């Protein structure tokens, strides 16, 4: 056992800097992995659960790094990184082999963009989730940053989530239109995405209509991210066209 001579404040700074450095390295590695995989498969990361989980992780890391750059709030990592790590573990539980695409998934460009928007919007949703939890924990842990900062990050991330999610759903509808000739079929996966979208819509309107800020608004953001996870893992318990993966 060694004893450290650094002051607690200093070591905290070091740990935090290391975390950021590791996050950046992780982001670069995940990017490289996805890039290589896309080069090998010739399509975006949408053909199975493994690919999409890695892409989701990438989206979370990207959104976290953007939030870090804008707000310098490293504490977000406490919540965001465990989610990312959990997803990576999940990704490698799923089959990692490269598979040929079933015919419906062969609209590669459209699906790559569709999944790109999904990943970015879910990543931003994860950041807003992290900010909301930290907002709620603020009185307990007395963080140095003001509580309002977390409220604002939560809101801003949701403002990014909502339009990206809108585009994702609309691109999904466009794909369904070309593949099956009907843009909306109420299949469980698309319906679950609609639920998520409505939760974030309700969040934005609650802020405008009722001036919801703080606790209630944080709770809605947590519900929103729970809905994201539900829509994401939904494949495992509801069938439908999206169970292709």
């Amino acid at each position, binding site marked *: 056992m060694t004893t450290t001579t650094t002051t607690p404040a200093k070591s905290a700074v070091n740990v935090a800097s290391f975390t950021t450095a590791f996050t950046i390295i992780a982001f670069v590695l995940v990017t490289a992995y996805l890039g290589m995989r896309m080069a090998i498969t010739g399509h975006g990361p949408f053909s199975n659960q493994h690919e999409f989980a890695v892409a989701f992780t990438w989206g979370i890391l990207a959104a976290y790094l953007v939030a870090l750059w804008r*707000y310098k709030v490293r504490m977000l990592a406490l919540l965001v990184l465990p989610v990312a790590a959990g997803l990576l573990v999940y990704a490698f539980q799923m089959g990692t082999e490269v*598979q*040929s*695409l*079933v*015919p*419906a998934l*062969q*609209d590669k460009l459209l699906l790559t963009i569709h999944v790109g928007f999904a990943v970015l919007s879910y990543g931003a949703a994860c950041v807003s989730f992290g900010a909301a939890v930290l907002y709620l924990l603020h009185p307990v842990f007395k963080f140095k940053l003001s509580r*309002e*900062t977390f409220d*604002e990050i939560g809101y801003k991330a949701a*403002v990014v989530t*909502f*339009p990206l999610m*809108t*585009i994702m759903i*609309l691109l999904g*509808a*466009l794909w369904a*239109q*070309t*593949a*099956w*000739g*009907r*843009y*909306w079929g*109420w299949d*469980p996966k698309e*319906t*679950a995405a*609609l*639920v998520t979208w*409505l*939760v974030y*819509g*309700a969040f934005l*309107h*609650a802020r*405008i*209509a*009722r001036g919801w800020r703080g606790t209630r608004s944080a709770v809605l953001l947590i519900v929103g991210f729970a809905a994201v996870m539900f829509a994401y893992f*939904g494949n495992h318990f*509801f069938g439908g066209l999206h169970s292709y993966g």
Partner: protein
Amino acid sequence: MNDQLKTDTDFVQESTPATEAGDYTEVSIGEFFRRIYQVTYSKTVGLIIILILTAYVLLGVLIPQASSGVWNDIQARENFLDAMQNRFRGLAALMNFLGLFNVFTSIGFMVVMGALTISILGCTTHRIPQLWQRYKHPRIQVSDRFFAAARYRGQVETAASDEQTIAVAKAKLKAARYRVLDGERNLVYADKFSWGGIGTVIAHLAFILIIAAYVITSLTGYEAVINIPAGGGKQIPVGAGTDYTLEATSFDASFDPETGRPTDYVSNLILRAGDQIVKEQQVRVNTPLNYGGFSFHQGSYGNALDITISSKNAEVFSGVVVQSWPGTWMGEAIVVGTVELPTLGLLVDVISPRSGVVHPALKAGQVMFVILQASDGAQLNQITVDHGQTGKIGDMSLTFDREGAYTGIMVRNDPGSIWMGIASILLVAGMMITFLCRPKRVWMRAQDGVLMIASPDKEDSGFRREFTELLSHAQTWFEPVRSKK
């Protein structure tokens, strides 16, 4: 002191006119409608409707839903409800009564969507005059207290006269692409994106258009699957009031040799209007054939019998019979497909032995046609026919042309989809304007050698940064002021 600023600044404050307590005794018709209108533009009501809709849609994910195909078929619906009975026991009847097994076509859901539409329309109409006012005639004049109390505020000392100071400020604001409007007593008002509120109007109207497009699709959309023999030259009528026919010259399914997963389905289709070929194309899952408002999608495929039935020398059926019902006859497994002959009031069951089964009465390469009364299913007659042969019963002749692959083509005509496309683009555009072009306002007043700068806009770290930047820029607009000491 802050209160005055708050009402001035809160963009979304509802100005509900105060109702005097005594008013209730006499509610005129105008007043009645005004109150209804107030409900439609209430943002709280709107929020509640969005939350109800969310809960409703969630039920549609959590509870198994009968597809419209199942729901509209009496037998299939009964089977479905039996399965639900087993799953939900005593609750199933109540759930069915509440429409929870067909949420998205239930009356309750339509009521919620209707309420949402009205609420969005109410909110938007109520909002438009306010937005117009803010764009065209923004409030310019502010009290002196404003500069001491606004959320964002700061000041710069200048050596110049107040008139000169304000002239410089105006020029700089214009250069920074603000819209600048003059107030009284060396006051200027400046804003950016004062038109940005149009974004929410566009987004909300787009959402109503989405609902409308969905209604158009549901009410007028046409959808059917037609099975076409691959090869053999048969032209299958498309129906839907058209004289179109489809012929499939081939169908190919390819599979990944390692995993056995399908990799491609291709049908070569020829579309004719009357006798005229109007389009010939390879149709794949993601590349439908489009013509005359119809789209033809690769749906399914399989093996089927290709048969022709004539009555009194006129052809009454020529096409594919898919044998999808299993059954037994004389103790051996068979497969059955049915042809409906509505003009004759008859059904024809086409029966073959299940593949691999040696049947005592049906040889390989033979089929049996069983003719039934459509009204009651009473069996009228039957005949066994060899491959490539024709059998006759009375004035009906039944031909077993061949057995082979067929391709199932989904035929769609959806007048709503174009509106859905337009609405989607508007929705995204409206949101982009809303979120990227947020209105920003700044007031400046020159007084006693000081330029005061303030804005009452909402707390936002991005705008705070911008405001701080503007303030530090303003320091550089003027000659350094010599210390007054």
